[in-house]
């Protein structure tokens, strides 16, 4: 990941040679041309991934180690992000929480996408009656706000990180299903599919070679955008005490724990919150960047 070589042709003067005005702040990274914001998003994402894969590399301490004497410590040189009510180092916990939060975001999105693909494909391929039924079902799901749907699910299956993941995945699925269905219908009637029919390709060949790849390619972007949303939702559930349970170092749970002390110890909720926002922003920025490039390709 870190072998991304940055050719330092930064456009400090705000005008690259031969570039059109208004394209300020473009950088070249290998063969990619990134904006400064996109580059920052890439770097932060790499940092977050490192934290998720090898948290001890960035924060060697134990996220659960209690030190009552240092409780409620403000950010300092020894505790960069301060300490919580039991004296646990918030920096260590935030770094350690990256794994759970990212995992929740990715898994929930994967569940949402998978359900969406199945529902959307069923609606788009199995005829008008099935399409009608699936659509009405999706409309019922749409009628509930996503978070409410997730709450409903947790109410039935009990709180916990697993339920939170499935709940968030479930509540994002209808949106994906709609998009996939629309894309499927569009691609299916495209001229190139007709051209493949004329060439004598069988229905299955056309489906696997032309329709599915062209339907699913835009999903990559949607998924990236979805990860940010899923993390925020999962954090919201944890905040409500319905996801990961304290003392687990999960951002939403930490945010929730800090709520009681928000007037006296702002850092307890600020830093987990900051990382939630950072992750969501990074995922969204990268999603948009990929989308932009796919459209131009």
């Amino acid at each position: 990941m870190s072998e991304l070589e940055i050719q330092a042709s930064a456009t400090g003067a705000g005008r690259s040679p031969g570039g059109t005005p208004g394209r300020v702040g473009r950088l070249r990274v290998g063969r990619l041309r990134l904006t400064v914001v996109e580059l920052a998003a890439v770097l932060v994402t790499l940092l977050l991934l490192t934290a998720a894969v090898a948290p001890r590399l960035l924060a060697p301490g134990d996220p659960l180690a209690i030190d009552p004497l240092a409780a409620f410590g403000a950010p300092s040189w020894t505790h960069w992000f301060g300490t919580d009510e039991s004296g646990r180092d918030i920096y260590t916990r935030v770094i350690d929480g990256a794994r759970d939060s990212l995992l929740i975001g990715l898994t929930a999105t994967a569940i949402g996408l998978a359900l969406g693909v199945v529902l959307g494909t069923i609606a788009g391929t199995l005829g008008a009656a099935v399409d009608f039924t699936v659509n009405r079902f999706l409309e019922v799901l749409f009628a509930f706000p996503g978070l409410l749907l997730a709450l409903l699910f947790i109410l039935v299956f009990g709180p916990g990180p697993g339920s939170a993941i499935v709940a968030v995945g479930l509540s994002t699925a209808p949106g994906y299903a709609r998009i996939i269905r629309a894309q499927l219908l569009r691609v299916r009637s495209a001229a190139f599919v007709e051209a493949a029919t004329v060439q004598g390709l069988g229905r299955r060949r056309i489906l696997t070679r032309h329709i599915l790849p062209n339907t699913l390619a835009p999903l990559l972007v949607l998924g990236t955008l979805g990860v940010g949303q899923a993390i925020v939702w999962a954090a919201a559930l944890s905040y409500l005490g319905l996801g990961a349970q304290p003392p687990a170092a999960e951002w939403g749970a930490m945010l929730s724990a800090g709520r009681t002390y928000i007037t006296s110890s702002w850092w307890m909720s600020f830093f987990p919150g900051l990382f939630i926002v950072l992750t969501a922003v990074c995922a969204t920025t990268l999603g948009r960047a990929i989308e932009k490039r796919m459209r131009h390709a």
Partner: protein
Amino acid sequence: MTPPSTDLNSTDQDRLNPAVPALRVRKLRVAFGDPDTRPAVDGVSFEVAAGECLAIVGESGSGKSVTARSLLGLAGAGARVSADDLTLAGESVLGLSESAWRRRRGRDVGLVLQDALASLDPLRPIVREIGDSLRLHTRQNGRERTIRVLEILESVGLPDAHLYAGRRSGELSGGQRQRALIAAALALDPPLLVADEPTTALDVTVQAQVLRLLEQVRDRGTAIVLISHDLAVVSRIADRIAVMHDGRIVETGPAEQVLQNPRHAETRRMLAAVPVDKPRGSRLAPADSAAAGPAAIVVRDRTPTDVHPAVPALEATGLVKTFAGPHGARHRAVQDVSFRLDRGSTLGIVGESGSGKTTAARLVLALTAPDAGEVRLLGKPWSALPEAERRTRRPLIGAVYQDVLASFDPRLSVREILGHAITGPGTGAEPGETRRAGRARQATRTLVLLDEVGLVAGILDQRPTDLSGGQRQRVGIARALASRPQILICDEPVSALDVSVQAQVLDLLDEVQREHDLSVLFISHDLGVIQHVSDRVAVMHEGRIVESGPADQVFAAPQNAYTQALLGAVPRLS
């Protein structure tokens, strides 16, 4: 400001005075982007007198549209316009501010664009669209404006103007829309009218009407700058012609002189590429042009080499196809259509938009099933077969489409597109062939196909979006040939192309037809193209074939009234 004269026929002395040109352009330069790149318009000079029509012709990218737009201060954001002189209606308009331009547009110069549907607001009745310029430039009240709009509409040949005035652009036919657009440009009776490809999207009979209207406008004393890629259209009304190429005017002069005695190579090339009245089998593009095929054979052997002369390649009998229209109405796209395509020959189906020719093509390609009637392929059932059985015979038919880009999977490179076409069923894969041998055979065949359509191997890894229109259509033809078909269905294969590229593609189609002894069903709205490529012709009108026969006969002595009207409307080089 005084309201403009309500009488379009008034012959204002000043405006007919040739000493004062309506428009004078000296060394116009328009550049975009980098200062180092070549300007889009590079030192163009011309004059147009009142009551005169100057035609600026050129292919796409020649700078003709940018020139036209600069005359209205509409060259676009980022355009750098400079000129030694740019005089409009006696006033210099160089370096005008946007608000100053806004005062002049409509009053001093009117603009007519190609796409009337896109140029008119779909949500407003045309009476208000046309009345806009009156509202902005005169003090007339609503009633006066409406009266004036009705007058203008009548003067552009919409006789029952009050019936049309309240309609929106979507409720008008193509011809009516184009007339409304011209009416909007003429509302303030400007001394200069700029028309950018005003007839390109229109059917040939409507095109003839619009050209006649422009002719009348010119004869009333309005100066016209007509932008077109089509020399035949231009020859009808232009007094003078300027030929643009690469941002410069390479030749200019009186219309007859340019058309009869073209001096510049570009003009000659454009003239040669016009297919009207060119004999069957003669080449349209010079043989030495970059992508032309090997030999230039002048006259084609007209007798089709046929193994079973009795069995036609394709035979359609009594085809009927009805679509459900709005409000439960039934739209009969194709009614009782029968034709036969003899082996090795070309059948041209010609008709205007809505005539049912594309539906006929889809029926032949078995993309849609006929309500009645049958298509037989090489003497055997075709349209009556279930798709599963038909599939094995589909490689017998190759198809070339108008919108060739849309017919390619956007994710695939040229190599993959051709590769997929080659590995399809019936393309010579041996039963016991190893994967490696299959790949090698596929690679060789891809190169052979590319060579056949005059493309180089260098484009194999490009995507169709990166190719030019002509290259794309060549890839499209290569794909159609990949399955070694006996029949080629071409649905408007050259309609989206520049005339010189069109010429190359038509030449190429002719070559591959001879090379592979193909039977070709060629569908087009363009009578010139149809006449050039066809052995036999079928004329379609409102879902029926109104006339058919040998091409020479139909074009020389049309029997049907509609065919006669259609042929009469074809613009020819005079």
